[in-house]
């Protein structure tokens, strides 16, 4: 037996992933345990939970693999601070203090925290971990692989060829020329939080026109060979990472948007930001298309795998499938740093001689304990009874336009709820979106909710069919024009939806959709994640009960235990 634990930590989204004999047994983000969104601290809770799911303890591990090279990282931080001397004087003490004080010693901390000999703790490079997470679990024997993010050790963008279990790097772009940091800088410019707000910018972009193209050509220059260069004078992050952009950017595009100001897309000012977002989205898509063109030249592959934070851009992924020339695209659903923990574990596993296995589910967390949930619910004064057919019960409630929280089986790995920890609602209701926002989500008005649909029914409701990305909500499809009324709560202003196609037999979501179709004729449900604003997705039955008490949704299903208010 071989057992490898992959770990990501310290930058964004700490996670642990366990691969045993080439199979992905468990993968979980630390935030689900600490309840701190995007928690980057060492994922000891997640690691403990992974081992527990597998019935193993730390002694059984052959290797612990950290997802990046801490020495290379320190080297880049030092070099980039010295390169920007003397402007980096503010950043230098803190950056170096963080590196030398804590982050450099991550391998020792893992050894001690997990109770594993230091000799068993190793690392792989950041982008290689991303590439492995994209290619090794994909359905392709051979593929082009593209990893695009903010920055790893030195690289921001890397092209790979994947063949069998091997990955070969073909070319890389170096910091600070980075699509991820471009997107992050503009996210901060639009008044959102970096590493959380990027998909809000993506949603906002559909409300605007890309009329800032001339200005954006100064921010990023795309070359014919697929590479690109940022106009560094517009970005301050090398000297002040808290800001992400410099005063020259505001001179170019106009004043930044204050954080937290309520949105009004009827106003000229907020339309300007929508136009900036639209231009950013267009430029990002073109940059990615350029990278794909170069990859096709170099690999001649018909399939593409994507990972790195930029691969979370579902709208761009749809454009790539349409226009890049690749026949099939698979995106690691946990495309950010959490997924890199999985990639690191897989690299370790392959090195030990294990084969690769296709990933067919993201339900890789710990399971609901319905019995405990029932006991705690009753202690809270709620009504909690076991029901025979939970999927039918949910569908019946949805048919009556109720909002149903569902927590069943093992929780999802990655940012999307796929039916394991979901909040479900009827997508046809005229008030559904407002109701959900008022009760739970408090989202900006331009942010859409997303649907789940039975895979076989996809063409009846959307322009297109299920593809390699749709089971995991990593792409968008157009909603059919004749169905937009019925799906008004999940159709974005541009007519698209970031859908989940459900095929998994015997899953709760499939049961709900089939039952719903029998009742209402529609096999589509609104599927949003089970969490309040600013919180990580619920993990345990206790988290779900806390959510249910705090937010007045109509019912909660913990596996087959139906929880309602007295």
């Amino acid at each position, binding site marked *: 037996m071989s057992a490898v634990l992959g770990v990501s930590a310290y930058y964004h989204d700490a996670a642990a992933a366990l691969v045993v004999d080439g199979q992905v047994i468990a993968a979980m983000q630390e935030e689900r345990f600490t309840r701190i969104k995007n928690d980057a601290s060492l994922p000891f809770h997640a690691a403990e939970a992974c081992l527990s799911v597998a019935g193993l303890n730390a002694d059984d591990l052959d290797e612990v693999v950290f997802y990046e090279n801490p*020495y290379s990282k320190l*080297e880049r931080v030092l070099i980039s601070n010295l390169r920007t001397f003397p402007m980096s004087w503010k950043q230098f003490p803190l950056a170096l203090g963080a590196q030398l004080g804590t982050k450099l010693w991550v391998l020792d901390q893992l050894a001690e925290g997990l109770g594993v000999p230091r000799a068993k703790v190793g690392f792989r490079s950041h982008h290689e971990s991303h590439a492995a997470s994209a290619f090794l679990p994909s359905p392709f024997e051979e593929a082009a692989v593209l990893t695009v993010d903010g920055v790893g050790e030195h690289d921001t963008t890397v092209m790979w060829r994947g063949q069998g279990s091997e990955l070969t790097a073909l070319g890389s772009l170096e910091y600070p020329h980075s699509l991820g940091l471009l997107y992050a800088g503009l996210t901060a410019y639009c008044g959102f939080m970096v590493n959380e707000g990027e998909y809000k910018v993506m949603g906002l972009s559909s409300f605007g026109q890309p009329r800032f193209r001339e200005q954006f050509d100064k921010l990023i220059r795309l070359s014919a060979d697929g590479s690109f260069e940022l106009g560094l004078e517009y970005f301050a992050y090398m000297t002040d990472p808290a800001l992400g952009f410099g005063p020259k950017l505001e001179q170019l595009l106009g004043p930044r948007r204050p954080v937290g100001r309520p949105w009004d897309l009827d106003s000229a000012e907020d339309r300007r930001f929508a136009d900036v977002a639209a231009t950013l989205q267009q430029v990002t898509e073109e940059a990615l298309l350029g990278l794909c063109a170069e990859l096709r030249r170099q690999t001649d592959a018909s399939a593409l795998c994507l990972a790195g934070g930029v691969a979370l851009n579902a709208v761009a992924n749809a454009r790539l499938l349409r226009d890049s020339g690749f026949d099939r695209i698979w995106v690691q659903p946990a495309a950010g740093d959490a997924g890199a923990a999985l990639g690191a574990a897989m690299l370790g596993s392959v090195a030990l001689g294990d084969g690769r296995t296709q990933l067919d589910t993201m339900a890789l967390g710990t399971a609901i304990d319905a019995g405990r949930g029932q006991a705690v619910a009753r202690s809270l004064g709620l009504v909690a009874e076991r029901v025979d057919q939970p999927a039918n019960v949910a569908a019946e409630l949805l048919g009556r336009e109720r909002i149903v929280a569902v927590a069943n089986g093992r929780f999802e790995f990655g940012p999307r709820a796929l039916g394991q920890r979901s909040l479900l609602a009827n997508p046809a209701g005229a008030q559904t979106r407002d109701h959900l926002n008022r009760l739970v989500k408090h989202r900006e008005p331009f942010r859409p909710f997303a649907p789940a649909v039975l895979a076989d029914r996809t063409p009846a409701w959307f322009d297109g069919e299920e593809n390699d990305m749709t089971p995991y909500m990593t792409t968008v499809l157009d909603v059919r024009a004749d169905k937009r009324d019925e799906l008004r709560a999940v159709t974005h202003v541009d007519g698209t939806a970031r859908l989940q196609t459900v095929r998994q037999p015997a899953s709760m979501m499939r049961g709900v959709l089939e039952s719903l179709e029998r009742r209402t004729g529609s096999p589509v449900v609104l599927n949003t994640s089970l969490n309040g604003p600013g919180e990580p997705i619920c993990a345990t039955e206790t988290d779900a009960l806390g959510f249910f008490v705090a937010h007045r949704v109509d019912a909660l299903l913990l596996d087959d235990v139906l929880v309602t208010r007295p």
Partner: protein
Amino acid sequence: MSRLQTLRELVGHFMHRQRFVLAPLLIVLLLASMLLMATSGLAYVAPLSYSIF
């Protein structure tokens, strides 16, 4: 001690043939580390240093 292994790997990284030109940067790291140690900033490496403060 595991921290010694990390130090060895760190020095090995900077002394590697491809990165030999960067070896002088080790001096910068050394100076910064000494300052950190004196001010208990190296919390992980010197967990008892809080006894002063």
